């Protein structure tokens, strides 16, 4: 197997080491995005927009034109940018809270309109930046700071599956995991290719948050793996 390059060329070296916690899934996802952009030769025309959530820590992660937006508002900002400059590749990088709670209307509407943008949803099943509160993706018995007794009987939101019935025939929806980076990179490349063809794409990635999960390295990987039972990996559309 060819070893993965250590640093994607599109990384901004001066902002490394990155700002995420040790063991966090975010930098794995960002590394795969960086490699995908490098390999597809898209770095020169990509615009990177990040939500408020731990995604905000990526505001200077890449050597790309990058802007933070507000919590939940990254998708409409991406839609507006793309309308104004259709030649650019526009990536919205959002947490599960941003994409499926406060900004869910934008996630649904941008998919419904088949806006040619790529949304990356980092699903760590909690509101990580604010200290581990419940998210729409929090699983049944999961204990969070706002669900101290778990939340039995509540349906967990599965984003790509929710969007599937309303997505255009040419749209692309997939779920990967920071546990399986190369699979994730493959999905990201297909998503970017879909945008180039003028259609909507969303890739959700399961992502570890050892800080709020309060897990050690082994437990983190086990938990990520067990999440795949609730959030099946694969190309959903």
């Amino acid at each position, binding site marked *: 197997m060819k070893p993965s390059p250590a640093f994607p060329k599109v990384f901004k070296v001066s902002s490394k080491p990155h700002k995420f916690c040790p063991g966090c899934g975010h930098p794995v996802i960002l590394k795969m995005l960086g490699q995908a952009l490098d390999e597809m030769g898209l770095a020169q025309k990509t*615009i990177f927009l990040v939500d408020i959530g731990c995604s905000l820590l990526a*505001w200077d992660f890449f050597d790309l034109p990058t802007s*933070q937006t507000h919590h939940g508002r990254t998708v409409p*900002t991406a839609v*507006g940018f793309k309308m104004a*400059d259709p030649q650019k590749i526009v990536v919205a990088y959002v947490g599960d809270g941003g994409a499926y709670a406060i900004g869910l209307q934008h996630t649904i509407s941008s998919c419904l309109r088949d806006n040619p943008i790529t949304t990356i949803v980092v699903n760590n099943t909690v509101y990580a930046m604010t200290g581990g509160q419940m998210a729409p993706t929090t699983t049944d018995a999961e204990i969070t700071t706002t669900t101290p007794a778990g939340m039995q009987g509540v349906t967990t939101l599965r984003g790509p599956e929710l969007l599937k019935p309303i997505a255009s025939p040419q749209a692309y929806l997939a779920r990967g995991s920071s546990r399986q980076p190369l699979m994730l990179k493959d999905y990201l490349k297909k998503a970017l290719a879909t945008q180039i063809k003028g259609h909507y794409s969303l890739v959700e990635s399961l992502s570890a948050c050892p800080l709020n999960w309060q897990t050690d390295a082994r437990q983190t990987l086990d938990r990520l793996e067990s999440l795949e039972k609730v959030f099946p990996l694969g190309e959903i559309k």
Partner: protein
Amino acid sequence: MAKKFLMGNQVLATAAVSAGAQVMFGYPITPASEILETWANLCQQNQVLKILQAEDEMAAGFGMIGACLAGVPAFTATAGPGNVLMQDAFSMAEALRLPTVAMIMQRGGLSTSTVIYSQEEVRLTCFGGNGEGFRVVYSPANLQELFDYTLKAFQTAWRYRWPTFILADGYQGKMKGAVEIKTDNLGLLTKNIKPILTKGVNLRNCYNLEEEIGEIILAYQKDFQAKRGKIEEWQTYQTKGMEIMLVAHGIVAAACRPAVDQLRRRGIKAGLFRPITLRPFPAAAAGRFAKKVKKVIIIESALGQLASLFKDELAWVATPLVEVNKPAMGFTPEEIYETVASLS
């Protein structure tokens, strides 16, 4: 120059084209909806123009921000509860100094309220958001001014890079009349239009340290204060020998003019000071007049929102001040005449 017979909201959309705007993001709300509808029709005639009827006002506001980041003049229009939701985007535009342009057609205040008229969105438009009001707010008073100040709003936004507003109301939006459609030298100063989010640019609005953001706010304030003299606009009427100074903005200021004429005929030396920019408030000019008169009477369709702008910056003026407030209700010139006559 061509004259066209248009409704106020049509004037605004037409002016946006003349100003160089290319994209409108909106969400229907009375009394602003015809701006979006007119723009939709203009898009049919001109392939360069684009429109997004967004899923809500947050999406409209942030869509506009996205377009501005790409260097394309964009705008939105809303009112009342939509103005409340859009503060989310306006506060980010303020933080990142993005040249957004928003047409606010005030409707009744307090919640959903009435759909046509008030001056209850002054405070929200000038100071909405968790910030310091680094915004430019124009308050036009007639159909021609809706056109002229829309042209100016785009120029101001891209030149000074503060979120810029046309603050009108449903009376003006729904009113019809003849308007000169100017296409001469008032067009957008193209040299100021360029992409904002470009190579090497990493923008954030979230900071670690109190000092970091504190310094930014102070730098913004310095710049806002330095430029305000170039941005502030006002209009006066019958100030010769003025003893009673009426202060009003927008359509209420328009109603004050015939009232001033009538008062003068009765020998009452009334005059009018009309701030055109509510933010930055033309405080120095207002102060020059206010200190010389016997009484200042501030008249508005709100409970002292204009008055508080005045008092905030002109606390040093010793002249007695009276407020005439009719929250969410309009004024006739006769009514203003009678009220002022009884106070004189």
